[in-house]
């Protein structure tokens, strides 16, 4: 039984390698193999604040955190309620506005995920991720 199980495991593991290698060869020239794509552009609080009304601030945190406090004028757009929140964001967006997405702190990734979806799913450009997130904003705006 053990030998049969091991054989089955090895066979499945090996079979999966074949198309994976083929697909990897197809993507072999993609620069993303070496480093994460730089299209997730980070921006500091100082730079983003300097954009003034040209910046569209998006809060990628959960609803309850947004309600406790957020960047003035920021709109809520998180992955939990993506479909419900996205239309309002698209209505507020215009091609000349830069989108600044933030989440809780430097270790959070919701802002990266939202920025990625805005580029991939909504096809938006000029999407930036705020370095340090809401925590950094609060430090610079006590």
């Amino acid at each position: 039984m053990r030998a049969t199980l091991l054989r089955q495991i090895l066979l499945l593991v090996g079979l999966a390698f074949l198309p994976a290698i083929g697909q990897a060869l197809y993507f072999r020239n993609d620069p993303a193999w070496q480093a994460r794509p730089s299209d997730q552009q980070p921006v500091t609080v100082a730079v983003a604040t300097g954009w003034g009304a040209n910046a569209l601030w998006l809060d990628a945190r959960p609803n309850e955190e947004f309600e406790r406090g957020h960047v003035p004028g920021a709109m809520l757009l998180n992955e939990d309620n993506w479909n419900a929140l996205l239309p309002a964001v698209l209505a507020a967006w215009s091609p000349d506005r830069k989108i600044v997405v933030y989440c809780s702190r430097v270790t959070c990734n919701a802002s990266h995920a939202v920025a990625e979806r805005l580029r991939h799913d909504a096809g938006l450009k000029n999407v930036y991720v705020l370095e340090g997130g809401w925590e950094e904003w609060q430090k610079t705006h006590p």
Partner: protein
Amino acid sequence: MAEDSSVKTRRRTEWAFLVRRTLAVLVGAVFLYAGIAKVTDPMLFAGDIGNYQIIPWTLGVRIAFYLPWLEIFCGLALIFHRLFFGAVFITSALMILFLGITIWARAHGIDVACGCFGSAGSNLSLNWHLALDVALLAALVALWFGREGNRAVAR
């Protein structure tokens, strides 16, 4: 009398077999769907892996190319009952790994989207993902421990 009892036992075993087969198809379909959802955009999946901040980016990309295909093959194996227990073993190990990583990331304040179903699952909250993972693992455990019944009918 003894024959009656034998027929009842046989029927019960057949029902159990049918339930396990249905369960295997359902679990297999979930893995097949998860694999296909990710295989179409491996770099997007690599980004989801990278969000966990556990492994280097270059390793994450390699996993992003491999893991969806493993899920697809395991899903097919579960559906068509070929290499069955190998698939149950691998998918169970994957579920334990996914659950562990998700809980670890959450405990370390890493606010991360699961990425389990590519962009298709982004609307699922973490709690739903965890519930689905636990349900899948429970189903896989049932399939694993039901192997004696499978054999009894196959005989």
